[in-house]
């Protein structure tokens, strides 16, 4: 399959700096790779590894300044890309090398119909216009699996689901049958079941057109399911390169070995069990018939339509227990969390915490309750005030709940909490933007612990983090649980990640609990079809599927 003697793209010794305030930062350092027609090259790396910068340079998407291509060559079909003039360079983009991105909602222009955005590709490369371009566009949308393409062609991006948007992006990229398709984290923002469909589509299209595929990902499973060859990047450098099967079965570099061992999806026998050791008999929180309806449309001329975000769910959690709530986007899992924290009002139902229904508490009782229940959010970038120092962020609960700690002890306690989550006392004087994603999530946990809670709700708290960081965060949460006998509600779309952490798992779909059980039982013998499909949606290595 691979044709290494005659690569369509050959990048050699690529070195890119970014100019920041004081000195240039090296984003990509002496990176070389090549890809041939019909071949899939995966560039694997965590955030900040330089994987996106290398391909953006090939696409001429790096602005200079602040970017600065210090050295290296990009040989495309025998032509040095950097020697081309602007117009010749533009002609290659979209026609011979195309690219799709991580978040299709942000990467599609919100004010143009999807049809218009695809037709533009034909028009700007002189490959058709007017009715001709429209007919081709409809055909293309049909090919990538958009239902009723004749109508949907005039829809705007926000009127599609996440998976469909990515299909539209793919349609746009393959419009002119490019030689190379670069896919930058194409499934990271999607649900696992949708991810599998998109990966299938990419594989099919590659088979049909014989294009080369360069896939950038941080996800080892996605990487193994797609790659013929793989390069692993870390800190701007290529640390390992080779045939995918060999890299995965016999990683040479220490970094690659660490990445592969951090996989949460491995066999149960291999991973240490991080489940709670002490679960009291005492019920901490009991939820009964919790329901949340949203009114979609009501008026004199339209009948009332409601959307059941959460539909009559009941569960309980004991002191010291960890409950995993698993579901895909739109399953209602976050709505449950928001109601339990009093951020949203339920339509009906009860939630009894320490003998009291939280939905009937007065302001004063609610304050006391909020102290006992804390939340860690998904986005460590958006959920912290960028103008507050870490010290103020962590000590803010004490400003609100005055009885927790006298002011003269705040400084010492902040240092203690930072130490607890694996940060240094001097970090207290810094601002959130000076930290990495994982460090920020540690700050968020420190803030949650500041009010000495009994229950911590983690809403996709590790989803935005790199795999190796995810594992560290789970370790930290597990350790804190034993130390402070905390209870967790751990909400995630990633079923395997809670395998070694949650005591009990609740699977949600369309606002309902469809399966609930002890973790080992649920993984061992999932009863519900949907749970089974979630477990199976995890991509399988390419060399195994091809052997079948």
């Amino acid at each position, binding site marked *: 399959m691979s044709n290494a003697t005659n690569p369509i793209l050959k990048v050699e010794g690529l070195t890119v700096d970014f100019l920041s305030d004081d000195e240039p930062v090296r984003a990509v350092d002496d990176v070389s790779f090549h890809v041939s027609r019909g071949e899939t090259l995966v560039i694997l790396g965590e955030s900040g590894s330089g994987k996106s910068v290398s391909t953006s340079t090939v*696409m*001429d*998407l790096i602005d200079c300044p602040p970017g600065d291509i210090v050295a290296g060559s990009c040989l495309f079909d025998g032509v040095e890309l950097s020697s081309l003039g602007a117009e010749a360079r*533009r*002609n*290659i*983009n*979209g*026609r011979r090398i*195309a*690219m799709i*991105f991580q*978040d299709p909602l*942000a*990467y*599609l*222009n*919100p*004010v*143009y*119909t999807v049809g218009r955005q695809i037709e*533009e*590709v034909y028009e*700007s*490369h002189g490959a058709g216009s007017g009715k001709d371009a429209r007919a081709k566009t409809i055909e293309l949308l049909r090919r990538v699996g958009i239902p009723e393409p004749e109508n949907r062609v005039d829809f*705007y991006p*926000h009127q599609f689901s996440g998976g469909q948007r990515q299909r539209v*992006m793919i349609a*746009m*990229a393959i419009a002119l049958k490019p030689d190379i398709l670069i896919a930058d984290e194409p499934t990271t923002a999607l649900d696992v079941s949708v991810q599998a469909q998109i990966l299938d589509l990419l594989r099919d299209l590659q088979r049909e057109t014989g294009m080369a595929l360069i896939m950038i990902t941080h996800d080892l499973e996605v990487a193994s399911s797609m790659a013929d060859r793989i390069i692993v990047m870390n800190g701007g450098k290529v640390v390992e390169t080779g045939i995918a099967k060999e890299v995965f079965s016999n990683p040479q570099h220490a970094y690659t070995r660490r990445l592969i061992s951090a996989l949460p999806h491995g066999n149960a026998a291999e991973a240490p069990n991080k489940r709670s050791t002490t679960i009291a008999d005492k019920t901490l929180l009991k939820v009964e018939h919790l329901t949340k309806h949203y009114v979609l449309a009501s*008026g004199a001329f339209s009948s009332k339509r409601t959307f059941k975000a959460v539909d009559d769910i009941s569960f309980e959690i004991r002191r010291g227990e960890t409950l995993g709530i698993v579901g895909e986007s739109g399953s209602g899992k976050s709505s449950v969390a928001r109601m339990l924290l009093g951020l949203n009002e339920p339509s009906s139902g009860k939630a009894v915490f320490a003998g009291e229904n939280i939905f009937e508490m007065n302001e004063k009782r609610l304050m006391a309750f909020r102290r006992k229940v804390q939340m860690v959010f998904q986005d460590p970038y958006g959920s912290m005030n960028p103008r507050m120092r870490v010290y103020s962020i962590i000590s803010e609960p004490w400003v609100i709940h005055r009885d927790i700690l006298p002011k003269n002890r705040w400084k010492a306690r902040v240092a203690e909490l930072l130490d607890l989550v694996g940060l240094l006392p001097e970090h207290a004087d810094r601002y959130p933007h000076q930290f990495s994603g994982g460090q920020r999530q540690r700050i968020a946990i420190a803030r949650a612990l500041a009010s000495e809670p009994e229950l911590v709700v983690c809403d996709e708290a590790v989803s935005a983090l790199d795999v190796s960081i995810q594992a560290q965060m789970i370790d930290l949460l597990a350790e804190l649980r034993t130390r402070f006998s905390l209870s967790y509600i751990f909400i995630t779309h990633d079923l395997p990640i809670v395998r070694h952490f949650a005591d009990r798992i609740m699977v949600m779909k369309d606002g309902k609990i469809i399966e609930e059980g002890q973790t080992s039982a649920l993984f061992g013998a999932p009863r519900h079809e949907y749970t089974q499909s979630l477990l199976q949606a995890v991509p399988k290595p390419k060399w195994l599927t091809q052997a079948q």
Partner: protein
Amino acid sequence: MITYLGRRAFHSILSVIGLLTLVFFLTRLTGDPSALYLPLDSTAEARAAFARLNGLDQPIYWQFLEYLRDLLQLDFGESLRQNRSAMQVALEAFPETLKLAAVAITLSTALAILVGSLAAARPGSMFDRIASLISLAGASAPDFWVAIVGILVFAVGLGLLPTSGTGTWAHWIMPTFVLMLRPFGLLVQVVRGTMLSALASPYIKTARAKGLPRQKIIFGHALRNSLLPVVTVAGDLATSLVNGAVVVESIFGWPGIGKLMIDSIIQRDFAVVQSTILVTATAIFILNIAIDLLYAVLDPRIRY
């Protein structure tokens, strides 16, 4: 959509009624018109007769009720100064203001979009710096000062342009230029800012990866997404111009509604003051609804 327009119209009418009530009582606080319209040595009987003739002898609440009754019959009262329908006076002056405002706001918006976009396309360039400087000067220069200096230089000194009045196209140049200064200056800043963030957004990367020509990326993809804030600010500025550019109209002797309003207030010509307010308020409400509809045209995610 229809219900939305109906609701907006209903709210607007309520606001106009509230505004007219306020204006009715406020104007009457300025004093008695008979002091201005009759000779200084006129007798008490003559004053009483004038008051009776114009209904000013009634208690103020009664005057107000009569005003409301007349309003319902579309009778807006008589101008004391001109002895004819106050509404007619207001409606004669309004088109003059509207013409000037439309020309000024259209030209300044178009020019600002062009200059702001080009500045944002090359931030930090010489063009960007000069554009920033000029727009800042435009936004902060006091219009009365520019108007007077303009008259001094171009009319009195060089004799190129008329000092004031209407008639030829030359009469338009100075008032239009002075009215454009502030909107142009503010809008260049707004366009530049929103264009900068639009050009840094992910869908621009997609457009570049598609191989679109540069001018299509800037004026097609980025500009279209930057227009909402521009429309908001331009609409706001248009409102203030429709309201009558009081200072500029007065300086250049432009027979618009702003000048009429000021003159009528000074002369205590109550019916005309009330009519001008009614006309401009209605125009402003229509303008605001039009701006809201324009949002929906520009951004498909906005639906009413």
